[in-house]
């Protein structure tokens, strides 16, 4: 005992932060017997890993040794395509991989040590589906989805969008509430397209304000990108003009209140004279319509858009959600639908769109459908290096955590917070200490970390704005910055973790569950113990280095 304390650099009897783990320690006693009986064997069986001899040389903590089986219609369609191409799918992921992935993809949040342990030791065969159901009810699911939609909708106070802080807050809240209440997507879209009123009081009117231009063509371009996944600029002139006509009667006027703006149907809008005489508009599918002066043409367009047989509407949103979960659209990029950019699996996209329409545009149920598929649950270790595997979902693609999720994860494991602020006045945005980055409403909140790690500027609504490419500057920051080092060294949570009173194995296990959501392998246990014996002598330094190494590992930094 004494020697363990010395190794971890504990001040004897200091009682650091054990309080925070009282609940965890209670749960721990349930499995204590496992450890007495032979900790390693039991825990590996519990997490679904085969003992080494059975698994063969390929055994790793990430992929099961058994081949994948279709679990729903998605898998039939994906596997059929893979068979056609002669690409074997990856093996299914192990429980810890699925657990971490589902948390990160659904709620943008790491599982806690307790959540990880509970799930891994649960022997219920239906536990993955149950976990998905639980995650879909979490508040963070709403926060995280709102963040993604705010990127698509360009929710940003400042240049070059200039929504200003009050409108940003109102708009973000409206988006978040709609997602929380699972308002059918066709209704959300219709409100965004047709709302009239003050940007403070009728938040969806901000859809037409969150743009760099207010001409009919600029409005139509935003609609085409958001709901049809098409790049308006690449359309022929005639098609552009036909669609712009639906947005030629959107009026904007300011009020006596600072930065308030009314968006309204203006039959006599000055820009309507662009159409002088010609009250005809053309839908993007080529159908003509005559607009009558007393009806807002935006409504005519919205009603066309959300019809169940519209070839864009359901497909585009289903493809977006697929891309958010699987790292790549069935049509890729998800906002570049065009005839010469074919879908990699048309039957799959048709099926997802049909399911969405059938469920009356219930977005949450689409998440559930995808998350429960074997395709989503495949390991990230591919079974083939065929380059076509990626576009056909033969394995779950490795992706670096987004800037917001990464800083939240670092804060969570270390129990620290970040300070976010906005330089934009009237009024200044108050951001309470401890606010998660995924919950920030405003894309112009100042944060060097988020900038460095490629947060999208929210200037265009293009999904390619987000940059997840690794850079040397990012690596320097994670490996060697005072910002990260301070989080690790001064974290009461991490100190409590490494000072836990138990065997070295138990301590290392808790560290692994907290940071990587899994139990350590034998080789990892050995490596950690070697380092604690032979690493730096400075008090606490070796333990800090172990945590430092884990947060800098590919496994921590990448969805896998």
């Amino acid at each position, binding site marked *: 005992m004494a020697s363990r304390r010395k190794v971890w650099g504990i001040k004897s009897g200091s009682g650091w932060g054990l309080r925070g783990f009282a609940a965890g320690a209670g749960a721990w006693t349930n499995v204590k017997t496992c450890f007495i009986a032979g900790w390693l064997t039991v825990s590996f069986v519990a997490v679904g890993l085969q003992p080494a001899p059975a698994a063969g040389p390929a055994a*790793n903590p990430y992929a099961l040794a058994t081949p994948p089986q279709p679990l729903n219609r998605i898998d039939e369609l994906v596997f059929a395509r893979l068979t056609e191409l002669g690409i074997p799918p990856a093996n299914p992921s192990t429980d810890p991989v699925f657990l971490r992935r589902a948390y990160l993809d659904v709620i943008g949040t790491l599982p806690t040590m307790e959540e990880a342990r509970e799930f891994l030791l649960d022997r219920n065969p239906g536990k993955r589906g149950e976990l998905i159901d639980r995650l879909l009810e979490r508040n963070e699911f709403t926060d995280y989805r709102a963040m993604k939609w705010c990127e698509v909708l360009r929710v940003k106070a400042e240049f070059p969008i200039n929504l200003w802080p009050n409108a940003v807050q109102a708009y973000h809240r409206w988006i978040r509430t709609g997602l929380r209440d699972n308002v059918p997507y066709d209704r959300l879209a219709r409100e965004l397209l047709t709302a009239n009123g003050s940007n403070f009081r009728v938040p969806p009117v901000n859809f037409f304000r969150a743009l760099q231009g207010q001409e009919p063509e600029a409005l139509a371009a935003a609609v085409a990108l958001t709901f049809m996944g098409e790049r308006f600029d690449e359309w022929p002139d005639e098609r552009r003009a036909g669609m712009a006509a639906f947005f030629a009667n959107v009026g904007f006027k300011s009020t006596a209140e600072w930065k308030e703006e009314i968006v309204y149907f203006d039959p006599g809008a000055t820009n309507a004279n662009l159409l002088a005489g010609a009250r005809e508009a053309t839908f993007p599918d080529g159908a003509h319509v005559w607009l009558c002066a007393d009806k807002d043409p935006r409504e005519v367009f919205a009603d066309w858009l959300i019809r169940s047989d519209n070839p864009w509407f359901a497909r585009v949103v289903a493809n977006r959600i697929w891309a958010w979960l699987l790292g790549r659209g069935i049509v890729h990029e998800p906002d570049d639908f065009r005839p010469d950019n074919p879908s990699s699996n048309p039957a799959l996209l048709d099926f997802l769109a049909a399911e969405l329409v059938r469920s009356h545009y219930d977005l949450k149920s689409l998440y559930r459908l995808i998350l429960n598929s074997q395709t989503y649950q495949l390991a990230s270790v591919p079974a083939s290096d065929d380059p076509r595997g990626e576009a056909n979902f033969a394995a779950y693609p490795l992706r670096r955590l987004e800037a917001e999720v990464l800083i939240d994860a670092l804060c969570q494991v270390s129990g620290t917070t970040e300070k976010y602020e906005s330089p934009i006045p009237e009024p200044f945005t108050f951001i309470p200490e401890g606010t998660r980055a995924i919950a920030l409403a405003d894309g112009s909140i100042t944060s060097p970390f988020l900038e460095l790690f490629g947060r999208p500027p929210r200037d265009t609504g293009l999904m390619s704005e987000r940059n997840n490419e690794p850079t040397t500057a990012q690596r320097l920051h994670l490996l*060697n910055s005072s910002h990260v080092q301070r989080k690790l060294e001064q974290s009461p949570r991490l100190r409590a973790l490494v000072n836990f009173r138990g065997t070295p194995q138990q301590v290392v296990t808790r560290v692994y569950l907290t940071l990587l959501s899994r139990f350590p392998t034998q080789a990892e246990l050995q*490596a950690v113990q070697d380092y604690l014996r032979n690493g730096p002598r400075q008090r606490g330094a070796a333990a800090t280095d172990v945590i430092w190494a884990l947060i800098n590992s*590919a*496994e921590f930094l*990448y969805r896998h």
Partner: protein
Amino acid sequence: MNVKPDSPAAESLPGRLGITRREAIRRGLSGAAGLALAGPLTGAKAASGAAKAKSVIQIWMWGGPAHLDTFDPKPEAGPAYCGPFTKPIATNIEGIRICELLPLLAKQADKYSILRGLTHGINGHETASYLVQTGREPGDGQVYPAVGAVVSHFRGYGAGYQGLIPPYVVLTEPQGRFSEAGFLGSRHKPFATGGDPSKTPFVVEGVVAQGITDERQHTRRELLHRLDTLALTMKGDPRLAALGQTEGQAYDLILGDAGKVFDLGTETDAMRERYGRSRFGQSCLVARRLVERGVPYVTINYKGWDTHKQHFQAMRRMLPELDRGLATLLEDLSERGLLNSTLVWWQGEFGRTPKVQTEAPWNGGRGHWGKAFCGVLAGGGFKGGQVVGATDDRGEEVGERPIYPPDLIGSIYTQLGIDPEATLPHPQGLEVRVTPPIGPKSKRGGLLSEIMESLP
């Protein structure tokens, strides 16, 4: 024009076609044709990459410094305009006077030229900062790269630069108000050092960690490699290989020689004193060390110039610091033979209200003034001892030689050997030039031919 009467100033260029450069540009002869017509200085040679300047040190006067209290004093306008600074001092160039609180810079005036005709008319910080540093007004749906990112594109990795220090460095805090790299993407974002070079050690975020020995850096890196189970399992995966490459480069900076550029302990105490022990002064010293090692673009973001209140108190505090740092930088670069190849650009986003705002709540402050302001260019192919453009008697309007942001940055690009008409890579394939086309929203007074040395 407010040039020294007998200086060989600028207006009449040796134009073979008998028209001045400015005229050529005024006549709308933009593009390579216009430049070639405008004189033998630029044109095809610039396009082929001949350059005077190898590096730029941009001193960004964040917040907008008062032109009347720096390089465009107006003592004759009376105390309602010039406040307590009624006695501008002579410089070592006859006929040029600057603020009395800049005596060291007064001795270096032969090394720099003052731009007194700067104008754009924008009074909002963000828009003005964007316009001054990208040459563009916002609103056409694009976010354009700032000068540093453009230089990083043309002179950084992929264009011959091999250094481990990123080609675009910011001392110490990034402006961060919008992506400085614009559509060029994060490869061209500046590397912001963080930390404070006036402290020891200068903790450059990511490069210099306090309290971690090199030995520990080595041992914990080995530990990371042993514990990196996913990377070991997926050896050969191209995404993880890219991550591994960034790690290698990071450690070259952390443990290799490249990172030592930030170690001011290797400078003598006398040199550190000369620059002043302020954050700004020591930033100037670091900037000199960076350009010595070939870094093409260094920005010093110098905060504190948005002086709406207590303006003159702030000037008394800050101008001596500016004076010492900038004057020493120019002198030191010159002594080391680096000034010819290093372009020093001093400017903020706008000037400040010429008439002192005595009313509440300002009580003796100065507001934003985009109609007229000043800047300084030195070295890197720009002549010293000149003044370009002039404001009226009260510093409120610019006279006959206006200098718009694209004029200034176009001149900088030219002296760097970057054709202002060159095309930038655009993610959606749009054709975008380094500087914008002339139009109603993008006026021109012409390149700064008055002070541009001819290219080799």
